[in-house]
C-alpha cells in the first residue's frame, strides 16, 4: 500500500531554532496516527507544515502522489487536507449552521460532494450531536460544544486527511468518551492525524504513535511498543519511569 502522505527531510527554522528538523514521515490511508511529545517538541509546527499554514525551510511534502510543498493552504484543503485548530477558532458571531455551511458549500463548489448545503450541514451536525443547536450563535455554545463544532467543520470538508490539533484540550471526561467514539467514526472514511496530550485518549484511539522531541522523530510504533520504549519514557513519560 502506498502512503497517503509522506515528508522527506522536512525542516522549519525560526531564527536559530530548528522547530522541525529533517523529518521523514509516512502516513498510511485509513490509520489513526497520534503525534505526541513534550511541549516545544515541534508537533504543531510539523502539522502546520502539512496543512500549509506555514512554509518549510527545506524538505518535501507529498500528499496522495502530488508534491504539495509549495501549495497554499486553501488549495491543500480542496485536495482533502483539513486542519482543526488547537485554539478554538470557530466563527463566534455566526450561527452554528453558517459555520458548517462554509465548508459544505466549499465541497459542493469543488464538485467533491453533491446536493443541498442544508443537507450537508445537517449531516455533519447530526454526527457531532449539534443538530438541535443549528440556529445558535457559535459564541453562545459551551466550550465543549465549540470544540465539537470545530470537528464538525473539519468533517464537513469531507477530508481524506483530518488533522486534529489537541482536540480534547479543555474537555470534561464525559465529553472525552463521546469524542473518542466520534473520531473512530471519522476514521472509517478518512485518515486521522491527531496531536494529543491526553494519554488515555492516545492509547485508546491510535493505531500508531509518532513521538517528537526537539523537532525530530524520536520513536514510532504501536501504542504497546511506545509504552515499552525507554527512550520515550525518558523524554516524555519520564514521571512514570523509575
Amino acid at each position, binding site marked *: 500500500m502506498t502512503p497517503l502522505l509522506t515528508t522527506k527531510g522536512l525542516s522549519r527554522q525560526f531564527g536559530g531554532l530548528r522547530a522541525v528538523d529533517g523529518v521523514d514521515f509516512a502516513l498510511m490511508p485509513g490509520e489513526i496516527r497520534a503525534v505526541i511529545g513534550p511541549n516545544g517538541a515541534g508537533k504543531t509546527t510539523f502539522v502546520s507544515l502539512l496543512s500549509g*499554514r506555514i512554509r518549510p525551510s527545506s524538505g518535501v511534502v507529498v500528499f496522495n502522489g502530488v508534491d504539495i510543498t509549495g501549495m497554499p493552504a*486553501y488549495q491543500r484543503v480542496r485536495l482533502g487536507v483539513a486542519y482543526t485548530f488547537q485554539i478554538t*477558532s470557530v466563527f463566534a458571531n*455566526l450561527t452554528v449552521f453558517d459555520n458548517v455551511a462554509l*465548508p459544505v458549500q*466549499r465541497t459542493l463548489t*469543488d464538485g467533491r460532494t453533491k446536493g443541498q448545503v442544508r443537507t450537508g450541514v445537517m449531516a455533519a451536525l447530526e454526527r457531532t450531536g449539534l443538530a438541535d443547536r443549528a440556529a445558535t450563535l457559535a459564541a453562545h455554545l459551551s466550550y465543549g460544544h465549540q470544540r465539537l463544532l470545530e470537528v464538525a467543520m473539519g468533517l464537513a470538508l469531507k477530508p481524506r486527511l483530518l488533522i486534529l490539533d489537541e482536540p480534547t484540550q479543555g474537555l470534561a471526561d464525559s465529553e472525552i468518551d463521546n469524542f473518542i467514539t466520534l473520531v473512530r467514526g471519522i476514521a472509517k472514511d478518512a485518515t486521522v492525524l491527531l496531536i494529543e496530550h491526553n494519554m488515555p485518549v492516545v492509547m485508546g484511539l491510535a493505531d500508531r504513535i509518532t513521538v517528537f522531541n526537539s523537532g525530530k522523530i524520536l520513536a514510532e510504533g504501536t501504542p504497546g511498543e511506545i509504552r515499552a520504549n525507554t527512550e520515550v519514557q525518558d523524554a516524555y513519560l519520564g514521571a512514570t519511569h523509575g
Partner: protein
Amino acid sequence: MRDASPAKTYALHIVVIALLFALNFVLPDYHQGLFARIMALAVFAMGYNLLFGYVGLLSLGHAMFFSAGLYGAGLTVYHLGWGVPEAFLAGIVSGALLALAIGLLALRTSGVAFMIVTMMFAQVFYLLILYFAAWTGGDQGLVIQQASRAIAIGGVSLDLTNPTVRYMGALALFSVVLLITLAIVRSRFGRVLVAIRENEERTKMLGYDTVTSKLIAVITSGAICAASGAAYALLFGYVGSNFASIQYSILPLLWVLLGGAATTLGPLIGTLFMYYVTDITSGFTSAYLLIVGVALILLVLFAPKGIMGSIRERWLGWLP
C-alpha cells in the same frame, strides 16, 4: 444572518421600493428633488457597505470610485457627445477598472494600512483631476447641458432634468442595486465575505482563496459606487472635483455607520437621516454642523450598530 424565509425578506425590500415609488406623487417639489439625490447617494453608501460592512475592509478612498463614475460619465458626454446610456456604462466600467487596479495593490495590506493606502490613492486621483483641469474643469467642474441629458426610447424622449423622470431614474438605479446587494449577501459568496470579516485565517483553512474573494468584493463595491457617481453626473448635470475630495470618502462611512453596517437597508436609512438632519437644522441655525455632530455622537454612544443594526439586534433578527 439568522434563518429567515426568503419570501419575507424579499417582500420587505419590495415594500420599501414601492414606498419610495409612491412618495414621488406625494412629496412637495423640494423634497422630491432631495429624495432623488438621497437615493442616488444611497447607492454610493450601499457600494461602500458591501466592502466595509460585509467584508470588514475599511476604505478611506471610496470618493475615487464615486468620482471615477462621475467623470467617466460626465467627460464622455461633455467631450465626446456620448448618449446617456453609453456614458452611464462608461462610468461603471471606469470605476470597475480603477477598483481592479487599486484592489490588486491595496489588498496587499490590511487594517490601518489599508485605510491609509486607499486614502492616498484617492488623494492622487483628486489631484489628477485638478492637474488635468483643461479636460475636467478643475475645481470649477463642468456643467452638463440639459440637451445632453435626455434618453430617446423609441419615439419618446426622457428628459433627465424633469423632476419626475429624475426621481424615477434614481429610484430605478437604487432598486436594482438594493436587490443586487440583497442577492449577494444571501448567496454562498456573501457567506464567504462575512467569514473573511470574522476570521480570515480560518476561512483560508476551509479552502477559500480569500485574496481573490476580497478582490471581487472591491471591484463590485467600486462598480456600484461608480454607478452612483455616473447617475449623479447625468441626473444632476454637474461634475466637480469636490466629489473626489476626502470628504466624499468619509461621508459614505458615516451614512453606513448611522444606518447600520452590514444591513441591506442601513445605507438608505443612514443617508436619509443625515440629509434630513442637515436640512432641518440648517433652517434654524448656521451652526447646523454642530447639531449633526451631536446627533452622530449620540448614535455612536447609544446605538453603535446603527439604526437598522439596532433594530435587527432588538426586534427583527431575520433582517439581512
